[in-house]
């Protein structure tokens, strides 16, 4: 009896020790583990910049999609997903050149106008050019773990590219490049090379907020802004606010996956077996970084950040070298927090999203369709845990 009591005490002490040494699980919206005090402070100040709401008096518009970053990236916390869907357009010319319609306001066509612009031109959104060949809907992704994706070296991404499918597995993986020729990784067509540029550009195209990196407003479908409509001097925010916003996104931790039981673990094996992991690569590794928490880290993003053909059914716009049917592999990290799936938010469940895969993913989809009921349930359990 005495011995049993002693053992109980030992077990209790060991449990307490284990609990104390194990940090609590990360919640959505938490910062990365291992940030310095100064980085944590910038993260918190950056969250405030990200959540700032603009008005026409503080620079909003004249065209905009939202009055602040957190108006869209809000679910379940600031930095998460949202139900807003925006409009992109491009023109694929007969010679194969993809024109992003920059001189007509493209590729992003804003869905709202300030009262002053409405009064001046009688429009409540940006006019879309008739000559564009395609229109794309783009859902709001979360931005969790973007700092880690930014820190993955180009060489690692290019290492997974197989544009001519030399290994014959039916999966090609093409890199996309920015307009100035650098490897892209952000955006649904992987056309933006860095998180910094993603943030700088987003301020202008989403909110009409000029900043030191983009000191000029978007045009109104290619035409200048009427006099007196935008009276706030450029840039409408300074470098510090821009940097803080970027640091918030850079230091946001990826969502912690849900704990896997036996069924989920079987699902993970099926995920690899049927070929999902050929594009939704389970992990990438970051390179050197001035931020310790980003340096040489493994990020379980379930993407290769490359373009893949999704088939003609999903095709919309071209962008850079991405063909209309090519999309960057959507990261699956945070899938358990998402309410819609795919680049256009068309799928309302992961199962529906899998069913909408085509092109290079057709073979994996066929294998998914051929799974037994328990196997399918196991795979979905795994996917819904990410």
């Amino acid at each position, binding site marked *: 009896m005495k011995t049993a009591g002693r053992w109980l005490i030992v077990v209790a002490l060991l449990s307490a020790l284990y609990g104390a040494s194990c940090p609590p699980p990360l919640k959505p919206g938490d910062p990365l583990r291992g940030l310095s005090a100064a980085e944590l402070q910038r993260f918190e100040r950056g969250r405030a910049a990200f959540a700032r709401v603009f008005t026409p008096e503080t620079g909003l518009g004249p065209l905009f999609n939202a009055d602040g970053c957190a108006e869209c990236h809000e679910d379940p916390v600031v930095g998460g997903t949202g139900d807003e869907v925006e409009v992109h357009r491009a023109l694929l*010319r007969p*010679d*194969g*050149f*993809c*024109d*992003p319609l*920059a*001189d007509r306001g*493209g*590729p*992003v066509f804003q869905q709202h106008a300030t009262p002053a612009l409405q009064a001046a031109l009688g429009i409540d959104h940006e006019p879309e050019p008739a000559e564009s060949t395609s229109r794309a809907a783009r859902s709001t992704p979360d931005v969790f773990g973007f700092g880690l994706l930014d820190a993955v070296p180009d060489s690692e991404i290019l290492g997974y590219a197989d*544009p001519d499918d030399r290994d014959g597995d039916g999966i090609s993986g*093409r890199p996309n*490049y*920015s*307009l*100035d*020729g650098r490897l892209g990784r*952000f*955006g649904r067509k992987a*056309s*933006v090379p860095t998180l910094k*540029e*993603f*943030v*700088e*550009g*987003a301020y*202008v*195209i989403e909110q009409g907020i000029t900043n030191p*990196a*983009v000191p*000029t407003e*978007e045009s109104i479908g290619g035409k200048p802004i009427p006099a007196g409509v935008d009276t706030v001097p450029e840039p409408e925010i300074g470098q510090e606010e821009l940097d803080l916003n970027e640091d918030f996104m850079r230091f946001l931790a990826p969502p912690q996956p849900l704990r896997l039981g036996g069924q989920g673990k079987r699902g993970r094996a099926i995920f690899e077996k049927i070929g999902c992991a050929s594009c939704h690569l389970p992990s990438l590794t970051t390179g050197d970084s001035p931020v310790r928490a980003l340096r040489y880290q493994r990020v379980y993003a379930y993407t290769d950040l490359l373009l893949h053909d999704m088939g003609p059914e999903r095709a919309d716009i071209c962008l850079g*070298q991405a*063909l209309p049917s090519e999309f960057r592999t959507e990261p699956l990290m945070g899938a358990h927090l998402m309410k819609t799936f795919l680049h256009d938010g068309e799928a309302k469940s992961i199962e529906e999203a899998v069913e909408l895969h085509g092109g290079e993913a057709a073979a994996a989809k066929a294998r998914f369709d051929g799974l037994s009921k328990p196997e399918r349930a196991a795979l979905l359990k795994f996917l819904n845990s990410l």
Partner: protein
Amino acid sequence: MRVVHRAVLLAFAAPIAAALLCTCSAAQPPAPVAPTAPEHLTGTVTAVHAQPRSFDLVTAVGHALRSRRILQPAGVTVEAHGAAAAPAALYPGCVVRVECRSGPTGAVASKIELLRAPPARP
């Protein structure tokens, strides 16, 4: 009496001052036009125009794109890998680095470097 003195003085002084001012401004050389600092842009060519020889260049910061028309004066050739390339080397889809200055008719190129021709479509 004092007022009369001041009026007389003013009457003599004003033309002298005006003459001096005129002489000074006439003697001054015209203010030199400060040369604008060259701008360096890297982007994708979206259109090439023959008259006047120019091209449209799109630059990007994220998804915020800006289109600029760049004039290509006679004598400014396109360089590729350090050598002059044929005028036809520039076409939509080419990635170029341009050194240019703002002129009264827009941006004028002083150097055009071809970085990448568009890859063949798969």
